[in-house]
């Protein structure tokens, strides 16, 4: 009689496979079973034997107990993907799976530490139809959020930190997909917004726009449902609105225009260091605000391309990429206040050290420090 793995949760296997962007055939080959067997495991009709189970755990870098934990039946708002049209379904599934894991661990951590409460103005729109939001409305909401968060009109030195302090969970993680920039959603029913940024994009200025764009979805698209999001023309409008929100939030009209002293690439280059946004974005903002006409816009774009800035702009390597700190801080607080050890967090949350470090940027030294601590616990005496 073949031994299975009692309590094996098939959905966890499917999600792991999707998190790695693997097809059932590819996974079957890697763990040396048939494709049909994989489908049966995933549907819960069968479970892997000890050897296959071990191979599955090694492959996905999960501890065995991960696959035995009940799969949470959570609700979520529709997910907003900031992606190129070329983004494949596989890339999206990969991002969704990792987003879901992120939520699972954070949910666990939030039972131990007090995370900052979500702090957004109650006046943000609750429209189900994006057509009801004009671009002027979007600009107004961006300005209102700045006021609400007491940010003034100037550049925001660290947008990630501002969002985290106002209760929005931000994480940077490699999605292994060039076509996908970010994904965001509201976790329900606890009503916490999550933003997952693709850390494969190594450009601070562009990453800040991605983040501000997702902030736009979080703020003005809370009531948009899946059906609306799946309509192509409405999706395009939703994306435009999020872009407009992000631009207005990072570059408020009055303060930004006071700094634009000349319509030239060199003048915008100077402003990039101050405002920490890409030159390309500033060009678009000037067009949106009707400071430049289509001819001037075209001229600037031609000059921009001829300077080969489409691939890399000046200061792209100098501006530091904003790193989230909230969840790292939560880990430290739990371990340093001796509520739980890092290994315990791993065991209780169901996620291996590998995933805690890579998905949530759990500080690696916490695990290392524990190893040192354990060494100290066993003092050896010299022989007499």
């Amino acid at each position, binding site marked *: 009689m073949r031994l299975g793995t009692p309590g094996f949760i098939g959905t966890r296997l499917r999600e792991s496979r999707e998190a790695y962007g693997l097809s059932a055939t590819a996974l079957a080959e890697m763990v040396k079973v048939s494709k049909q067997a994989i489908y049966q495991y995933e549907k819960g009709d069968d479970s892997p034997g000890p050897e296959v189970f071990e191979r599955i755990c090694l492959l996905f870098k999960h501890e065995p107990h991960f696959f035995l934990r009940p799969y949470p039946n959570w609700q979520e708002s529709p997910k907003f993907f900031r992606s190129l049209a070329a983004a494949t379904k596989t890339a999206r599934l990969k991002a969704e799976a990792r987003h879901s894991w992120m939520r699972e661990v954070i949910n666990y951590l939030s039972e*131990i530490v007090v*995370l*900052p409460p979500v702090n957004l103005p109650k006046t943000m729109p609750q429209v189900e139809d994006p057509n009801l939001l004009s671009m002027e409305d979007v600009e107004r909401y961006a300005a209102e959020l700045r006021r609400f968060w007491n940010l003034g009109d100037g550049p925001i*030195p660290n947008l990630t930190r501002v969002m985290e302090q106002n209760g929005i969970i931000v994480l940077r993680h490699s999605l292994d997909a060039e076509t996908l920039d970010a994904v965001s959603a509201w976790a329900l029913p606890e009503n916490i917004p999550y933003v997952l940024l693709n850390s494969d994009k190594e450009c601070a200025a562009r990453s800040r726009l991605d983040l501000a764009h997702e902030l736009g979805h979080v703020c003005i698209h809370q009531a948009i449902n899946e059906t609306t999001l799946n309509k192509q023309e409405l999706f395009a409008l939703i994306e435009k609105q999020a872009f407009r929100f992000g631009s207005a939030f990072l570059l408020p009209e009055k303060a930004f225009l006071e700094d634009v*002293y000349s319509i030239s690439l060199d003048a915008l280059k100077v402003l990039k*260091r101050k405002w920490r946004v890409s030159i390309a974005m500033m060009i678009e903002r000037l067009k949106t605000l009707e400071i430049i006409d289509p001819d001037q816009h075209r001229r600037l774009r031609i000059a921009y391309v001829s300077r080969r800035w489409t691939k890399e702009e000046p200061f792209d390597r100098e501006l530091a990429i904003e790193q989230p700190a*909230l969840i790292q801080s939560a880990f430290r607080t*739990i371990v340093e206040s001796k*509520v739980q050890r890092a290994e315990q967090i791993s065991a209780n949350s169901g996620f291996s050290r590998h995933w805690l470090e890579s998905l949530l940027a759990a500080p690696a030294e916490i695990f290392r420090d524990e190893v040192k601590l354990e060494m100290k616990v066993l003092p050896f005496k010299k022989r007499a």
Partner: protein
Amino acid sequence: MRQESSDSPLMASQVFLDHVPAGVLAAMLRAVLQSYKDASSACYETMRPRQAKDASGPFRRNKIESELVGVGERFQQVISVEDNLYKRGTGNYVELTCGVVKMTESCVPSPKDFPRDADYRETLAESTQLVLGFVPAETPGKYLYAILLHGVDGTAKQRSGCRFAQVRFPLKGFASYTEDRVDLFAMFPSIVAEYSDQSATADEVHTMLPLRVIPKIGEA
């Protein structure tokens, strides 16, 4: 080099400020200060010091003129810009028109000095109406000619700093200036500070607020 005259026929600066918005002047100051920096880095990063020093003047002048065209585009509702050829076709100069004001720029050793002779400057100075009781609205076709004077700060590294930026008004005949002037350094000290203080662009440190552990039931 001619020196300024001490007579003061009228307050040209008042007419100037009535027609040129402060935002435009702030933009012109930024364009000048940034061009000093850009010219310095462009020349000193690619040439030996002596050649860089020689080249930085013409480079800076053209950079400023180029940015002034950009200033004109930025404020196209209130300014018009002309890129004019010298009379003999040996070069270009940029002329900004803002209401009744026509303006060019020049680099000089000090704000009391005059730029070198140029036909266009003398022609522009001739067309001005700097007499007592000058009323722009009643003198169509006539302009107030202003020059944006700026000069190198000899103490700045690699000629990257500007020591002054003032708008002055040459009198007819281009032999003297009116006594009044518009000092852009005095008008916009924060912009000047921004360009002289390199630390202004340094990264701000943002630390995470401390989190607290939820007390277990009975612990609180």
